[in-house]
């Protein structure tokens, strides 16, 4: 369909973008890779008066090593993240999740920060970011602030980013040498996951030193499978620990499955994800 008419700005610096946001307030929408915004506009689910395109802000692109973390610019396309050696070495879980994110075309256009800021609980990046204890660098009129992943995802399509703010980069603490696996359950390849489990593991099967597990599409935000993590850290066996994966979740019911079925899937997929992440 054809979107309603809107004005368009393409700033070249974060400051310009922030100033445009300050001027237009909630009449403005941020365009990153457009893989969610464009369908929204074309289906006329939203009719912003101003679209601010971040595509020309070079400083928002790229991946760098920053000591104990790697830093991924918000406008870095998924395809770049997926091929980046730093990501593969220090945040293998993100590398694995990006491999199966949507399809090749979307991975070329869609951006790492755009997907996270959209905060679809069925999105593939939320659970890995949460599991890796990433933090989100948000620029606003008063300067920059950093929000931990646990506080970033607020609700369905809602994050800690204020109306006058922009996500500029995501800091991912290095998990060098950790095994990782993203177990995604879909009916067709290009679909949003019905449920997915992001697991990253220090140590190997039988001698787990640490484990972190994120859940995709098991509630209105990405979630951690805390009970399972705790049970495993306490030396519990995986089969039993995985049975706790749906604790404190609130999965949806839709065409692809009832909530109860998703709870069951979360347990099975958690077992499989941890097994695969620990080289099993």
């Amino acid at each position: 369909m054809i979107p309603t008419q809107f004005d368009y700005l393409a700033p070249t610096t974060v400051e310009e973008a922030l100033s445009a946001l300050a001027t237009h307030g909630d009449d403005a929408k941020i365009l990153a890779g457009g893989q969610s915004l464009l369908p929204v506009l074309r289906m006329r689910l939203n009719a912003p008066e101003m679209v601010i395109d971040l595509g020309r802000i070079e400083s928002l692109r790229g991946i760098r090593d920053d000591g104990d973390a790697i830093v991924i610019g918000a406008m870095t396309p998924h395809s770049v993240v997926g091929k980046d050696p730093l990501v593969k070495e220090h945040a293998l879980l993100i590398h694995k999740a990006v491999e199966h994110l949507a399809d090749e075309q979307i991975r070329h256009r869609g951006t790492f920060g755009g997907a996270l800021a959209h905060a679809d609980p069925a999105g593939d990046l939320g659970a890995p970011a949460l599991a890796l204890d990433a933090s989100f660098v948000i620029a606003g009129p008063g300067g920059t602030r950093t929000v931990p992943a646990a506080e970033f995802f607020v609700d369905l399509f809602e994050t800690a980013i204020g109306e006058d703010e922009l996500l500029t980069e995501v800091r991912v603490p290095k998990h060098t040498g950790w095994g990782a696996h993203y177990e995604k359950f879909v009916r067709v390849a290009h679909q949003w996951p019905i449920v997915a489990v992001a697991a990253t593991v220090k140590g190997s099967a039988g001698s787990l030193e640490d484990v972190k597990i994120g859940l995709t599409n098991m509630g209105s935000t990405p979630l951690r499978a805390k009970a399972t993590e705790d049970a495993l850290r306490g030396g519990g066996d995986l089969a039993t620990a995985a049975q706790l994966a749906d604790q404190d979740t609130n999965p949806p019911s839709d065409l692809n499955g009832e909530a109860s079925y998703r709870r069951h899937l979360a347990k099975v997929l958690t077992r499989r994800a941890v097994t695969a992440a620990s080289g099993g």
Partner: protein
Amino acid sequence: MTAVADAPDMAKEIGRDRRRKEDQRLITGRTRWTDNLSLPGTLHLAMVRSPFAHATITSIDTTEAMAATNVVAVLTSEDLGESQGVCINAWPITPEQVTPPHLPIANGRVAFAGEIVAVVVARTAAEARDAAELVDVEYEQLPAVIGIKEAMKDEVLAHPDLGTNKSALWVFDSAAAGTGTDVEDAIAKARTDGVVIEREFRQQRLIPAFMEPRSVVVDPTGEQITVWSATQIPHILRFALAATTGVPESKIRVIAPDVGGGFGGKLQQTPEEMIAFAVARRLGKPVKYTETRSESLVSAHHGRDQWQKLTLSAEKDGTVTGLKVELQADLGAYVAIVGGGVPVLGAFMFNAIYKFPAYHFSCQTVLTNTTWTDAYRGAGRPEATFGIERMMDELAAELGVDPLVVREKNWIKHEEFPFTTVAGLEYDSGNYEIATAKAKEIFGYDELRAEQKRRRESNDPVQLGLGVSTFTEMCGLAPSRVLGSLDYGAGGWEHASVRMLATGKVEVVTGASAHGQGHETAFSQIVADRLGIPYDDIEVLHGDTQIASKGLDTYGSRSLVVGGEALVRAADKVIDKALPIAAHLLEASVEDVKFHEGRFQVVGTDAGISLAEVATATFAAHNLPDGVEPSIDADATFDPVNFNYPHGTHLCAMEVDTETGQVTMRKYTCVDDIGNIINPLIVSGQVHGGLVQGIAQALWEEAVYDDQGTLVSGSFVDYLLPTAADTISFEVDHTTTPALTNSLGTKGVGEAGTIASTPAVVNAIVDAVRHLGVNDVQMPCTPERVFNAIHSQGSGGATEGAAMPHFDPDAEPGTSSTADQQGAGA
């Protein structure tokens, strides 16, 4: 005819895997899609559609929309009046059929969500769309009836003034027809000393989902009003436009330029075409309308949507004795052009390749407040094939024998052809034995059975199942007399012309209007061989009523077996007409001249002349025999005397993850007998595409309504179409039993893959988990349904009437629905 007796022997082009001539322009899109057309001064249309499934329109205020930028007109049903014509049902299946009138724009009441209530005309498409949002329509909602089982109760009515939702009951009974014995006797006997299998299957609602959205351009400025439309049926559309608007047929030209797929979904006379025609005439200016994908999914016709109650009786040794089929089919809100007839096409196919002595078929069609339904690839035959092939597997399971064994016991042996079936059709040819033997070998049937046994014994979490489908179908629609006996509104012949140009090139005109099938390539190959003219010198023309004046278009796997035969006959007439001219030019008697590989040769000499040279000489007309007209062009119209019966054996192996219900295709082998093959590459494409479409019904696709009548699978987020990433490499092979009903010995292939594959997949899934107590999984076999079936919850239950939002920031997530919420038609 002696001159052409040896024509088939010189085959050079037939059988070649030529790359398709048309593909470069189709794939790049640098071609004549309807939406690519831009006529000067074109006005653009946007439709205002009802959000409600059933409602009275209490008022339509167009003031604000009319005042919007560059809006030329905003028109309602009242404004267009009789000029909008009506959407016709060309196949009333019984004389008593209840058929609601169907105006292109609803007048006073809407009967499904997506129905058009007004049209906005503006200078650009964007302005039209913007203004459409400003049309203020007030509705008073009426109760909506959704789903076949609700409709059958006749409590809530889709059209209250009709007094019932039941449209027509169509019955065939072999005892009454004299084609067999009484099925009730057979079932009663089997209940005492045989086996009776009773099952109820769901054919979910599907959406054709062609790649090119529907589009129409109408130019009223010439002497003929020209209509370009992304349609499968330009000839039928012209007839319907003339018949319902009063515009003389001779004043209408319809062009289906390049059309990007249809699968039956463009076999329709659409409200949008009628509205564009009326608006163009009213304003005297060219207009264009191109639908969005969202509009396409709610308003282009849907397919399938049946409940099938089947009762099969057999002797204890597995010999089948009777089949009783009771169908209920959802027409949607209106009876589409062949809507009621689609399930009736299945009436002749439930008995399939088996020798049932007794057969009874009934189909009750019902009206509901949903999108209308009509033909979708296979149209009636996939439903029938699914029903019978599932039942044969159930019979085998009941008897504890291999499903191929029970089939072989009952199928028609190759020496029994021609065979008149219990449904009254005469199958001309076939060989189910060799197709099955070949498929078994390629598939590695015995090895896979052994693996299945091992997995069962070791209680492997991933179980393996093998599914069988030994299908046949009736295609090549259709003998006109048969269509007449079924009260269909038209015939089933096809027309072709061969025009010999002065330069020796050839124009071939076919009435079978292609929409992606490859007619231009395959028909060129046929004519090249027949006339001995180089392939590249042949141009195939179609889809324009000024060029291809006669035709009945493309559907029902008819183009090659009906249209191709017309073409062969026209080409043979060209040779017949050229022969006396050639003889005259060669100064020989006609009896001494023989046509061979494009040349007329004086027998026993070197003297000869090519057909191209004869064409040039005929054009000059300087030296023709006395009384011979200066033309060797020829036409032929072919009306088949019988349907065409492709068959094949499809074998599918599915892995089922019993922990999650996930299903994964392991192997798919099909050996189809489609007679002689013109172009193996095109055949491969048709088989691959057909298989995926049939597999998609088994596994992925379903149009789901909520109980308010909203299509919740209204985008490709929720209506799951597969991509190449979701399929495996199929093993496709053939046996060749030439058809006896056309001179090329060909059979249709356009629908075969779709018809055959669906039951093979579901049979494989059920086979994988039958030992866990499962005897059916409702389609699409979602992981959740498979999981529920394994865990003793019947066939897996209905689809939730909710869809998860992924874009809408204001939407609530799909909320848990109650257990009685049902998929469409449930």
